[in-house]
């Protein structure tokens, strides 16, 4: 398979999505926000993103990536990103001084943790795993299954102050602010990022959100092939896998399409972000579609029975390094994830979580199951691993500044 023409890039993915009968988006897909005149092989800046304040921050966007949405009250600056990076990696942001954000979001693992269920600073086990922060600037909502948590700034408060379970274990905004004000080395960094302001939770969350928005991943071998037209960047097997990925047989692209390889995206100048959630038949513990509590997905927020088991489609970028998989880490390998979807939902014969997921009445129409040859499995896995962005996983810009 030859690379698609460079100018079509992710647009070709979009076209397939729009041709699918079941897309619910009325706002166009990711490529709709490609900056006018954006050309392959060049980094597209955010100068035309309609966020004039962001001009002080030099986005290094991969070709074909739209300008991220940035809150008007927290424009990106290099100083905020740098302060946020220091805060992200600082264990003084936990009550007992043992954990930072980075403890559960490791750069080498695309800012996941490598555990199916995260463990907090006091040893409590989280029901879910740490999500990748790659391209989190484009996440329409945050965490695995929250319908309206759409602010990275607000989200930062959850691991800080949440106690069910304890993550960073902070108890009081005032105590945190006082603690940081007493660290002399922070004074100039805060002063540069937030002139005239004392260190505050608002500044902390804005800085951390700015750092998180800088975590852009889009320079994997796959991108060099698809967008930059570098024919040898990925294997022929990976190219065949990408073709399978985009077929109606395998249905992968419906939920994992677009530049971010998820349907759950937002970007600048987009009025109606897509906040789609899907029940993939991972569980069916009562024969009526239930997922094991407390991991009931969107239902846990809305209380709407129809939202049972509905979770966000995570990005497939760097998926090779983010095992184990699914919201609860209940699938160890990518190959087994393919088995889950091939079966149209997972069957757990006995024990905890037992049930026939393929018979989940709330399951997404896209999870219908498929027959997959071993050669096709190899090809799909080759495609998925071509999304590993080594530059992102090793870039000093995203690394621990305290080392």
């Amino acid at each position, binding site marked *: 398979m030859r690379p698609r023409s460079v100018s079509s890039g992710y647009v070709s993915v979009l076209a397939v999505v729009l041709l699918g009968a079941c897309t619910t988006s009325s706002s166009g897909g990711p490529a709709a926000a490609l900056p006018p005149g954006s050309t392959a092989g060049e980094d597209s800046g955010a100068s035309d993103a309609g966020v004039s304040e962001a001009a002080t921050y030099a986005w290094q966007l991969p070709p074909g990536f739209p300008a991220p949405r940035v809150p008007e*009250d*927290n424009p990106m600056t290099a100083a905020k990103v740098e302060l946020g990076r220091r805060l992200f990696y600082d264990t003084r942001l936990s009550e007992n001084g043992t954990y930072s954000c980075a403890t559960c979001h490791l750069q080498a693992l695309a800012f996941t943790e490598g555990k199916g269920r995260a463990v907090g600073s006091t040893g409590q086990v989280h029901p879910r795993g740490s999500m990748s922060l790659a391209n989190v600037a484009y996440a329409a909502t945050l965490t695995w299954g929250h319908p309206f948590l759409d602010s990275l*700034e607000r989200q930062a408060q*959850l691991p800080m102050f949440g106690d069910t379970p304890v993550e960073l274990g902070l108890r009081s*905004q*005032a105590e945190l602010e006082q603690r940081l004000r007493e660290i002399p080395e922070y004074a100039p960094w805060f002063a540069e990022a937030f002139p005239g302001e004392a260190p505050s*939770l608002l500044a902390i969350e804005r800085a951390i959100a700015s750092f998180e928005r800088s975590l852009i991943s889009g320079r994997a071998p796959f991108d060099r092939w698809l967008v930059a037209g570098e024919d040898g960047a990925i294997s022929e097997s990976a190219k065949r896998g990408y073709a399978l990925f985009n077929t109606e047989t395998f249905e992968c692209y419906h939920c994992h399409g677009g530049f971010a390889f998820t349907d759950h995206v937002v970007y600048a100048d987009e009025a109606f972000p897509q906040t789609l959630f899907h029940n993939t038949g991972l569980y069916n513990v009562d024969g009526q579609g239930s997922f094991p*509590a407390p991991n009931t997905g969107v239902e846990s*927020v809305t*209380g709407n029975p129809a939202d049972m088991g509905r979770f966000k489609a995570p990005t497939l970028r760097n998926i090779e390094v983010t095992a184990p998989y699914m919201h609860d880490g209940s699938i160890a390998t990518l190959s087994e994830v393919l088995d889950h979807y091939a079966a149209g939902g997972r069957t757990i014969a006995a024990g905890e979580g037992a049930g026939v997921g393929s018979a989940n009445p709330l399951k997404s129409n896209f999870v219908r199951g498929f027959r997959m040859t071993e050669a096709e499995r190899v090809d799909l896995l080759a495609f998925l691993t071509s999304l590993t962005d080594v530059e992102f996983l090793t870039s000093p810009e995203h690394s621990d500044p305290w080392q």
Partner: protein
Amino acid sequence: MTESHASRFSSSFLVVPALACWAICFACSSPHTAGPRSDEPETPGSAGSGAAGSEPILEAPVRAPPLDAAPAQRPVRIRFRAVVGDEPFACGATYLDPGGVAFSGADLRAFVQDVGLLDADGVEHPVALDVRAPWQQGSVALIDFEDGSGACAAGTRDVNLEVSGTVPEGDYRGLVFSNGVPEQLNHADPAQLPPPLQAGSMTWGWLLGYRFLMAEVVALPGDAGAPGSALLHVGSSACAGNPSQGGVVCARANRNRVRLDDFDPDEDAVLVDLGRLFAGIDLTRLWTCHSSGAECELFFGRVGLDLATGSALERQDLYRVGALDEGQR
């Protein structure tokens, strides 16, 4: 002595050295009615997530009929006292349930809002709350009984046992207040609000709101079996919407209006009974209520809330009138 004082239940269990005993007696409790106010589903508030320019509304609403011009005002303190049955609540204290399970209180904090006093005719006169950082702001006050010691190690050191404010001179016979945080503020960014609404243990990140009530007990290791615990977090639940697109709406507001008759602010205290809240449960297992799920049923009834709808019930058993020298001081 008020009816409440006379009817408070008596301890009927063996005294265990170093252990305070408490008993459960639902039948002899004297529930005060919970009115029907504030039980509507939330409507979208103007305070979005970090939305610039959305100035929080912190003024207390005026509900009483217009008064005569410039009535004389007097300061008033509404004192709250935490108890476990008959015993004062203290983080380091140990209590014994009827099944012989020893336990301690691990947390007890509550937001109250829209406090008013009732005159002899039952007319409500709003208490204008003092601005008293970090406990009071606008119409909202945080009552905090835990001091971070003992079983409350996850808490904070400072406590607040009263609501202070001013009220027109008058002869007051009753107290009304609502649990919770005003819906206009419930989904705003705590980082942009004054205390007691700042981020901390009472913010409920996953629903972008607040815990209106946080109550927890933990059993201690003993002969009765593995130590369990009970945890009740009340806040508006079943939420949908979007802070940046018109606001968040919670179908179950989980706010109720508590009315305590025979309450004299100068003579009485509001008793908050952790024992009555968790009475009769098996503390060798875990009880967890985050304002949804079947385990909430019993506790919500005692708080005075209908679990299914989030509306107020006619009775509640968490608050009652007591003497100032009762409970934690």
